[in-house]
């Protein structure tokens, strides 16, 4: 992972973290409901864990695929997937539906996993990760033990990317949650909660298009 990649992964993590729909608002709500800062604090790692699981699935899939297929194939496949998913997000009027606020921390993590997955959180990392896989495209031609080592390396790459991304997400989500809970108050939502789903969809399409063009 290059410094540039790490920065990009962290920036995407921050973008996910700041989105009220991705978990910090839920953590604040739980804190307010229990009148307890501890309830807020306990919720954040669960939100981050669910997010990490969702992202890791895609990240590892990308790094492993990248280690066994040509980078060009990965870029075309991944880029097309991103554009398609982004268009669906942009045009669909459906939103994530879930009933219930009294969740255990495990259930909260599951909620976060699903919320991140339907928003294609992991997909967003695809362009960043696909770029790093250009050098490994020969695994298919290598011997068995080397292949095993390559796959293990690719998995570690994927998990490393997930870790960088999730830490940034947790830091930003936690910061915003504490700020809103302690200082600003929720009235701020009415003014600053811009339609991040739109930004998100357009970013997905843009990232997919870029991946396709730069392959």
């Amino acid at each position, binding site marked *: 992972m290059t410094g540039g990649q790490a920065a990009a992964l962290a920036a995407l993590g921050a973008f996910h973290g700041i989105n009220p729909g991705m978990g910090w608002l839920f953590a604040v709500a739980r804190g307010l409901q229990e009148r307890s800062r501890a309830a807020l604090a306990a919720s954040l790692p669960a939100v981050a864990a669910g997010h990490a699981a969702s992202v890791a699935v895609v990240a590892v899939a990308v790094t492993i695929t990248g280690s066994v297929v040509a980078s060009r194939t990965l870029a075309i496949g991944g880029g097309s997937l991103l554009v398609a998913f982004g268009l669906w997000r942009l045009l669909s009027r459906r939103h994530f539906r879930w009933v219930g606020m009294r969740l255990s921390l495990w259930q909260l993590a599951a909620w976060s996993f699903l919320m991140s997955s339907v928003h294609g959180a992991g997909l967003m990392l695809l362009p960043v990760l696909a770029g790093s896989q250009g050098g490994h495209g020969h695994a298919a031609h290598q011997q068995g033990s080397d292949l095993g080592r390559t796959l293990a390396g690719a998995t570690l790459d994927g998990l490393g990317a997930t870790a960088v991304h999730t830490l940034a997400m947790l830091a930003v989500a936690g910061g915003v949650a504490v700020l809103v809970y302690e200082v600003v108050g929720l009235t701020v*939502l009415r003014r600053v*909660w811009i339609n991040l789903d739109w930004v998100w969809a357009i970013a997905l399409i843009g990232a997919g298009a870029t991946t396709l063009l730069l392959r």
Partner: protein
Amino acid sequence: MPLWKPDPTFYPSPRDAAAAPPEKLAYVAAFDRSAQQPDAIAVLDVDPGSSSYGTVVGWTELPYTGDELHHFGWNACSSALCPYAPHPHVERRYLVVPGLRSSRIYIIDTKEEPTRPQIVKVLEAEELAKRAGYSRPHTVHCGPEGLYVSALGGANGRDGPGGVALLDHASFEVLGRWEVNRGPQYFAYDVWWHLTHDVLVTSEWGTPSMIEEGVNGDLLLGRKYGHALHFWDMRRRRHAQRIDLGDQHQMVLELRPAHDPTKTYGFVGVVVNVEDLSSSIWLWHRDEDEGGDDAAWSARKVIEIPAEPAAESDLPPLLQPFGAVPPLVTDIDLSIDDRFLYVSCWGTGELKQYDVSDPHAPREVGSVRIGGITGRTPHPAAPDLALAGGPQMVEVSRDGRRVYVTNSLYGAWDDQFYPDGVGAWMAKLDVDPERGGLELDTRFFPHGDDFRGRRVHQARLQGGDGSSDSYCFP
């Protein structure tokens, strides 16, 4: 089309909503009892600074007759901000308007021209019956993941069980029956919830065949109408607990849970106690200290309003054997700050205001007489006009300073209690939000021909009101 910023009428907390600007328009269900003319949504100017204040400024007629418009709700409300399924960039713009007799559901757009709402979709009775197994849709509430519509009857339109249908809040298609397991519940009427506690509450009136021809004296004295409250696990859609208020307490209607999402109590009105014709308000509550989420709900009577003696000659035939006017509490409403409870006594013609800061010990702080079976109290704006009907549907503005009432209960029942004609009127009361106390606004009294021969039922205030929104943050 989604919005770039949250809909300005969505508020995270009831505290924020109480600071909302005053409403400028009210939408009122108007129906023709004779089913000769189509029912309509009347648009009332409620802006005191406007030259047409207190008059009907818009009128959208339905394409059919005989729907009997009754209650209705918004497609979206503050619950869109709830953190587990947030979608704050939808618009509050469509009224979801059931016909209580026809079982049709109209979707009416108020955005393009707020004083000329347009019907954009009609759900036919067959669709509700086929997909959800229900008829006679009644209450509409906007939930975080769909529209909840209570329905009095089963698919055949005569019998139970009534229940709750779920509608998609984007396409307005009927998604199906909400309940997975209804337990002992058979009667339906109102539905609301403690959203942040994952608890749904329903109440009981009667099946369509028990009400559509009028109140049935044999059924009433036989204590056959609904007399229980039901609590449900909202996530699993399962019946959790039934509370029987006692079978003398006939017809358990409007549910008003506390708006503060950390609270676990609410109020429900009972129309009549067949032992003494009194009406009552009950408090349901769950004490978090005693078992938290797993604690059982309980209910107790916190207000009892006695019947008023009357001469037999002044009474409609239905009441003559009793020699008294029952208060008939048919609607109640709770201010958004959970401080004042408004209680409509449709029989005696009185609107009562209680301070419920301590929900276990309500204190009456205001009362206004208007209409009534024997009182026929006029409105101060027309002191010579004896009024039939009484305060019935009651709606409170978000800031708690204004209260609106309309005078019809339900077509067939109007005719029994006010056999010489219930008429049509709407009134507005100004409230002292600090100390309590009510006063009729003499500038606001649309009545009679203003409503073009229709009777008036629920009013919804533009932007939301005391019974339209749920909040996920305290």
